[in-house]
């Protein structure tokens, strides 16, 4: 017999196991309906693969596993899927969860299933796949998918079979070992094969199950000796609650403590429940998925307590009926053991894969607890704790919701066995505090993860918006430049309309730098246009109407497009932009109107045979006397003289600097004119080309000289009024 170790703490509650061990394992009559929750295990809920109205056979897959840590669900009997809906499930919350409901047909027809001929010839991966597809989860109570546990990354040297049914009242595993020990040993052999035949296999069993031990020993003696199989040893140790906890059992059997936050696999150990081992045997050697389990129904409220082999999904009420349950006697029905179980809200819930016990105790058997008193710091809880924690410290911190301190005291290592609550002289429901705090911590962690994700999404969103804004601003800038260029071009076009010099002016004016020269040129062109024949004028106005109409249409279209866009973007800047667009439409409309008016005026003039021109443009045209060359009209000459006189008067009042400026301006005007003439001459191929060219160059020289003089003068005076004056004059 190998050595056993002791664990810290632990308690010795009344066992109460005899009641349910009086008879043999019983079978349960087939219930009319089976309710199969999609989530009977730890991990992601299974996904239904059948729909309402489908006929299903016993053992048929009805919900597939979703993800790595998950388990499929199989029909426990043949029948028809009558509903896939929310039903009350056995859960401490008493809430509803999605379930598949099957109306049984009473035929118990099996779906096709194949036994693996010789599991020793199969690879570990194949066997794990069989176990996974059979929907086997830990049958001890936690319900962790077994296949996940059988794929450790570490190499395994010890396989431990948990035959330690340490909670009071429960005898399901005991019964199983007594009656099916040979099958269990085959299941253990399968596990050993999957894990690469570890050095030793230990079956940990408490000394309160002598019959089960005997049955196992007998089966071991009869077991054919296989060359690969490691020796199986049944290890007996003193009864103490909670020896059946995984980490506790590992410590009892090997003396090694599983560190906080680690798994037994980190020590090279895999631990499996003995009920699970039997289910694995059924799955591999018979091809049967997990459709039934052994459940203890006990308590004084049951007249015939015992162990029942029950189909998964059987309503609790149906099973209780078989055990002679008297509802009147039972104030509180518990699923699981008295230490770690939870109260069921109703008897409509089904038996699930992890249901090892239904406890129907009378009020006298488990009376309502006395009200909790204040903690007296007696320290009994710390002595009882099998995980070496400080329950009273945890209690204080849980009360004050100090989650940081709770984690520092390793709340996560609490196995919620209830030993501390059991020994507490003040009847403080300690474990409830820990469960609540654990839930809170889990929630906080989830929220933290969620908020981290939200933060990243927000930051990316912000970055994207910024980039979009930047792109938009760049586009806007580009559009603005293009619009300015186009505007300048159009204006030049309109102004030089009638003039034949149109050929080179646009190119000059499209150059962004609207130098004085250009303005002068434009002015010259205007004058030339004014001098043009009424026909030409008419043509010009008509063209102006055309262009303004086109511009108006374009502006309106832009605005429309923008208003459409505006559905998508709505901020102040864009609103302002839209307003601007509107204003430009308005402007275009005004221009259009103006051009029309002008044409109308021209028509009027022509009809009244008045030869004198009254273009508003011309009145403001500042023409120096020198500019007015051979002007045939008398009126014109008169106005020119008047203007010249006025100019002279102005000139007298001017500073030398202003005089110079004016001089330069007029020179430039002349230059412009000269250039126009030159261009004209060029295009006409005139003989006077040379003369024109000379005039231009001499004018240029003069301008340069004036500029120099001006520059020397302006050094001391303010240049502020210069551009204003200039623009005044050129208009």
């Amino acid at each position, binding site marked *: 017999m190998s050595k056993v170790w002791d664990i810290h703490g632990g308690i010795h509650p009344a066992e109460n196991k005899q009641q349910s061990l009086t008879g043999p394992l019983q079978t349960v009559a087939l219930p009319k309906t089976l309710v199969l929750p999609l989530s009977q295990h730890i991990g992601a809920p299974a996904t239904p693969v059948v729909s309402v109205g489908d006929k299903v056979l016993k053992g048929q897959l009805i919900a597939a596993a979703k993800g790595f840590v998950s388990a499929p669900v199989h029909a426990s009997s043949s029948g028809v899927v009558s509903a896939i809906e929310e039903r009350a499930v056995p859960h401490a919350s008493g809430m509803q969860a999605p379930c598949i409901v099957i109306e049984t047909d009473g035929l118990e027809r099996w779906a096709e299933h194949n036994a693996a001929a010789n599991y020793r010839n199969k690879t570990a991966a194949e066997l794990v796949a069989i176990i996974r597809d059979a929907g086997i989860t830990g049958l001890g109570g936690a319900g962790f998918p077994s296949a996940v546990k059988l794929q450790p990354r570490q190499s395994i040297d010890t396989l431990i079979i948990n035959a330690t049914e340490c909670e009071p009242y429960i005898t399901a595993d005991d019964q199983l070992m007594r009656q099916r020990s040979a099958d269990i040993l085959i299941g253990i052999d399968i596990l050993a094969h999957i894990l690469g035949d570890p050095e030793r296999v230990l079956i940990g069993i408490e000394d309160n199950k002598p019959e089960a031990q005997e049955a196992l020993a007998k089966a071991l003696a009869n077991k054919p000796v296989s060359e690969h199989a490691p020796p199986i040893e049944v290890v007996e140790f003193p009864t103490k609650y909670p020896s059946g906890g995984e980490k506790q059992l590992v410590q009892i059997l090997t003396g090694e403590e599983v560190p906080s936050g680690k798994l037994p696999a980190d020590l090279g150990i895999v631990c499996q429940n003995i009920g699970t081992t039997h289910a694995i045997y059924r799955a591999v050697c018979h091809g049967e998925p997990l459709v039934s389990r052994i459940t203890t129904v006990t308590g004084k409220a049951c007249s015939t307590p015992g162990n029942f082999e029950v189909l998964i999904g059987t309503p609790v009420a149906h099973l209780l009926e078989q055990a002679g349950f008297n509802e009147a006697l039972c104030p509180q029905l518990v699923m699981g053991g008295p230490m770690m179980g939870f109260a069921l809200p109703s008897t409509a819930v089904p038996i699930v894969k992890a249901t090892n016990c239904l406890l129907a105790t009378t009020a006298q058997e488990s009376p309502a607890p006395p009200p909790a008193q204040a903690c007296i710091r007696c320290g009994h809880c710390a002595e009882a704790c099998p995980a070496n924690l400080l329950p009273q410290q945890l209690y204080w911190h849980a009360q004050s919701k100090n989650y940081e301190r709770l984690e520092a005291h390793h709340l996560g290592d609490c196995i919620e066995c209830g030993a501390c609550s059991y020994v507490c002289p003040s009847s403080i429901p300690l474990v409830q505090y820990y469960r609540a705090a654990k839930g*809170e911590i889990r929630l906080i962690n989830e929220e933290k993860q969620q908020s981290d994700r939200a933060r990243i999404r927000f930051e990316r969103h912000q970055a994207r918006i910024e980039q979009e804004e930047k792109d938009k601003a760049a586009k806007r800038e580009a559009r603005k430049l293009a619009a300015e260029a186009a505007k300048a071009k159009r204006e030049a076009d309109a102004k030089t309309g009638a003039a034949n010099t149109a050929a080179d002016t646009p190119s000059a004016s499209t150059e962004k730098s609207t130098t004085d020269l250009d303005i002068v040129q434009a002015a010259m062109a205007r004058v030339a246009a004014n001098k043009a024949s009424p026909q030409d004028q008419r043509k010009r106005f008509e063209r102006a109407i055309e262009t303004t109409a086109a511009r108006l249409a374009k502006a309106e279209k832009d605005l429309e497009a923008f208003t459409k866009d505006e559905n998508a973007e709505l901020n102040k800047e864009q609103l302002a932009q839209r307003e601007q667009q509107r204003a430009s439409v308005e402007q275009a409309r005004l221009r259009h109107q103006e051009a029309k008016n002008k044409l109308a005026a021209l028509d009027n003039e022509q009809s009244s045979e008045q030869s004198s021109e009254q273009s508003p443009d011309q009145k403001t045209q500042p023409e120096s006397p020198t500019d007015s060359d051979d002007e045939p009209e008398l009126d014109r000459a008169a106005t020119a003289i008047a203007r010249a006189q006025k100019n002279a008067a102005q000139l007298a009042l001017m500073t030398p600097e202003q005089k110079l400026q004016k001089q330069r301006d007029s020179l430039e005007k002349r230059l412009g004119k000269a250039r126009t003439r030159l261009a004209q001459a060029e295009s006409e191929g005139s003989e006077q080309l040379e003369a024109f060219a000379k005039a231009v160059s001499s004018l240029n020289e003069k301008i340069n000289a004036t500029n120099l003089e001006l520059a020397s003068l302006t050094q001391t005076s303010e240049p502020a009024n210069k551009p204003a004056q200039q623009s005044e004059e050129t208009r």
Partner: protein
Amino acid sequence: MTEMSSLELLLTAVIALVALATVFGVILGYAAVTFKVEGNPLAEQIDALLPQTQCGNCGYPGCKPYAQAIVDGEAINKCPPGGQATIDALANLLDVPAPELDAEHGEEAEVKSVAYIREDECIGCTKCIQACPVDAILGAAKLMHTVIADECTGCDLCVEPCPVDCIDMLPIPQTVSDWHWQTPLTPAQRFASNNPSHHSNANLIASDRGLDDSKDHAA
């Protein structure tokens, strides 16, 4: 050895001190450049405590701007989604007394909610998509939109811009997977709440104590 004059002594001391000052100055200067902390670590710490709903209830366009504002002296009680827990955490971080939540900015919601678009009524205007600070709404112009419920922070910024009012804020229903035990009530609380059903669950384990009485029966 001749004795050092007092001037020499003074000089030695001054030179030594200047040398030390230079050496440490160089070290400090180097450290200031090499170990320079980018950004404001305090703002980031505060940001980490905020719930990241990006709802703007605090008056700032997101949690990060509010975190920066707190660094600049803004009150810490303007975050209704975070509630008292966030205020307490901020107070703890900044070592200031924790005030009550400023009711002006809204109330702490009992249950978290998530936006839901009634898809039949959605006209596909994309206004909610632009309003969503975490890009949790999917859709395109003139096509139906929908909310990615897992990414929705429940800030309800999308509700107001909807021209057809087809967005609802629905409370997230509790399921078995996110349920957890409640802290048991103290006797005084239980008396005040007058809810006996609460204690039946809470004291189940302590009820084991009654099992001792039936020991003789078992044996």
